[in-house]
């Protein structure tokens, strides 16, 4: 006599992950979960996928799915199984990633994660067990609870006005472009079980072939919370539940979809260095910069878009290449408002403490508000360069040397007002004595690779350099 029914080899013989009663499941009598588990286990075994399978458990009655399957498993927070499964699937491109979720988990608290995993077309299969009620927590209203159906938090029945309509997840998922397979099946009678088996097998084959995302909604009976006898519960699915949630395959692109490979590589440092654009440079000039003080504080201020941030960055970069300690700090908070942007740069022979510049040795002010705001903070031995193309009046309370540089006009004559910051760079390099013109030119050629940009910036820096000689 041939055996027609046996425990699937994909199940543990003894449920040792279960703290007690290790020969029986934790499901209530008549529950659909046991049948669903049996189908999945049989199909995993038949397809030889048991060892490749990784189960992601939900919170709800499916929380202990890992008690039964002899596969690696992870239990996730409520609603997050599809997100956890995304991480599992990306980390294990060869896995058959199985997310097993109930209606509260997937269709209420975790809807966003479920939909986005589907929309990315993650290589995973989601079993959405819809018994239109919260089982584990005690029969509360689910997003899938039927209209007028009684729940512990809908004692007068689900009301459209108060609770909205029952949510049809399979139809929603089928509306997305990425999923490969979307279907709704039942496990309430032998005919539906046969159909469910076929669809589940197909979903697992899609995973085996890495053909993307499969979503299988399974209408499942919950005699306990429905307050029905098991047989009555099975009949209720055919007579009532499946009218709201019709069975069917809503989308099936298995034939036309190709395998989706998502890399997950470990690489050597050399490859990282190449990607970061790191180049071994010849031992840089060990001679440090000559500066008026061992530590110089710069403030570059102007309108957003005048290049005050990149001006500071260029100075920091050039100083770093000359073995100086540097910090660059962009403006923040209230200073950003009113269109004033600034960057603070500290260049030092020794390690730098605070990167905040309160009293700059050098202030570059490209517009009037920044000259008014920061000018009075420059000490007597400092210097201020202001953009005389845009500023016609200077504050009375400045204590130090002040240079009027028509930076915007000079930039305009070399080709673009955008190069005003490079004009200033040339100017302050000469005035502070920190860099030679040749240093600036080499730096600009390294920074700007396009010939046209190179040309205009070289002209701009020269214009600034000349102006510093004349002023």
């Amino acid at each position: 006599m041939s055996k027609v029914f046996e425990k699937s080899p994909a199940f543990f013989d003894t449920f040792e992950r279960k703290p007690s009663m290790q020969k029986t499941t934790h499901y209530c009598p008549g529950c659909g979960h046991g049948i669903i588990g049996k189908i999945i286990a049989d199909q995993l075994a038949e397809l030889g996928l048991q060892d490749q399978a990784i189960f992601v458990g939900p919170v709800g009655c499916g929380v202990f799915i890992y008690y039964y399957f002899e596969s690696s498993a992870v239990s996730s927070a409520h609603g997050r199984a599809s997100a956890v499964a995304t991480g599992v699937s990306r980390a294990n491109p060869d896995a058959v990633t199985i997310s097993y979720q109930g209606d509260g988990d997937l269709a209420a608290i975790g809807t966003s994660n479920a939909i986005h995993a589907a929309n990315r077309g993650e290589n995973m299969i989601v079993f959405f067990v819809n018994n239109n009620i919260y089982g584990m927590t005690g029969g509360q209203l689910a997003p899938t609870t039927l209209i007028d159906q009684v729940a512990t938090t809908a004692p007068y029945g689900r009301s459209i006005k108060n609770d909205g309509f029952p949510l049809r997840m399979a139809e929603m998922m089928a509306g997305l472009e990425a999923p490969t397979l979307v279907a709704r099946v039942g496990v309430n009678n032998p005919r539906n079980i046969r159909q469910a088996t076929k669809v589940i097998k197909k979903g697992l084959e899609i995973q085996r072939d890495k053909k993307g995302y499969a979503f299988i909604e399974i209408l499942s009976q919950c005699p306990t919370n429905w307050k029905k006898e098991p047989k009555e519960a099975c009949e209720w699915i055919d007579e009532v539940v499946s009218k709201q949630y019709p069975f069917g395959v809503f989308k099936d692109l298995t034939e036309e979809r190709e395998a989706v490979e998502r890399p997950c590589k470990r690489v050597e440092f050399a490859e990282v260095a190449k990607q970061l654009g790191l180049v071994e440079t010849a031992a840089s000039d060990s001679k440090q910069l000559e500066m008026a003080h061992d530590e110089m504080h710069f403030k570059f201020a102007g309108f957003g878009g005048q290049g005050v941030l990149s001006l500071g960055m260029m100075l920091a970069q050039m100083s770093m290449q000359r073995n100086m300690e540097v910090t660059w700090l962009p403006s923040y908070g209230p200073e950003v408002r009113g269109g004033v942007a600034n960057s603070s740069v500290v260049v030092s022979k020794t390690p730098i403490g605070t990167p905040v510049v309160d009293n700059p040795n050098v202030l570059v002010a490209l517009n009037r508000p920044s000259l008014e705001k920061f000018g009075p903070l420059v000490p007597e031995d400092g210097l201020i360069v202001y953009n005389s193309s845009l500023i016609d009046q200077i504050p009375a309370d400045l204590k130090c040397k002040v240079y009027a540089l028509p930076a915007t006009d000079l930039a305009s004559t070399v080709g673009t007002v955008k190069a005003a910051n490079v004009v200033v760079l040339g100017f302050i390099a000469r005035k502070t004595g920190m860099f030679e013109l040749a240093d600036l030119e080499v730096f600009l050629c390294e920074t700007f690779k396009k010939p046209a940009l190179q040309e205009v910036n070289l002209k701009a820096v020269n214009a600034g350099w000349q102006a510093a000689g004349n002023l």
Partner: protein
Amino acid sequence: MKKLVKGNEAVVIGALVAGCDAYYGYPITPASEIAHAASEYFLPLGKVFVQAECEIGAINMVFGSSSSGQRVLTASSGPGISLKMEGISYLAGAQLPCVIVNVQRVGPGLGNIGPEQSDYFQVVKGGGHGDYRNIVLAPASVEETYRMTIEAFDLADKWRTPVFLLTDATLGQMMEPIDICEEPTQRADKPWALDAKASSNDNLVTSIYLDFDDMESHIGGLHEKYRQITETEARADVYGAAVPEIVLTGYGITGRMLHSAVDELEKRGIAATLIRPQTLWPFPSKVYQDTVKPGVPVLSVELSRGQFIEDVRLSLPGHQVKWFGRVGGNLPELGELVEQAEKCLEEASNV
């Protein structure tokens, strides 16, 4: 090989040097450059980068990836970290290693995008539900951000625990040179990880233990681990006078500003010492006990209205510790810090 980078980019470079496999995150100012740099570098290297649908999604992807033995990074700022907290509790409960960066901004609520240090309680004291701890590293420069990111991956693997890197808007946005070269990292064997092969069929990653005694023993195990971490990993940078008249303390960007204050005080003939904790949990209480002699005033500075100072006071029972700070996105000026220190010293001598 020196590179001038923002603190936020330094995190990503550190992660790459540490062999990080995956980044999952959601955009938020002032942490977004971390996601920008991760997407730029991870994808061409064949590593995993996913911009998640939400912060909660991101931390749960971290959970899934870490369950699978990967070195994983995520980053956000206060409001996003609030959302991640549930997942962080699960990571701690399931003993999953990962690195989480909080580039602190101003709160509560939407606050603003300036620098603050007001997520101290959130990150150092827990934030999520349950009886757990996370290792918290607090860098004070871009270079230290880079170094500590590398270290964070090793610590996470070593102790099977989430590790936080607590920075702020200033550290994240400022640029400094970092010196990048190949670094030895200690990637742990992870025989417990999920894998698509038969040998891992018995592997289960979970934080649920239905049986009360099993759960009690699990929590006991966590806390034995936390005890060992407390004994071995706490550390602080101590700078300044060997016999101080005043001790200044602060972490992160504040600690760095106090470094300048110590120098300035020295110029004025005042012997000051800075204690800058590099780990906030475990808190380097012993360093405080060894450095602060009875009667020496302590000025604790933070960009929040009295969070960090609680741990300083717990470390120095019975000692007078004075608070100073700025909030709302403002940073104290150096002169302000020096003035506060002088005031604190004067008050102490009047007692």
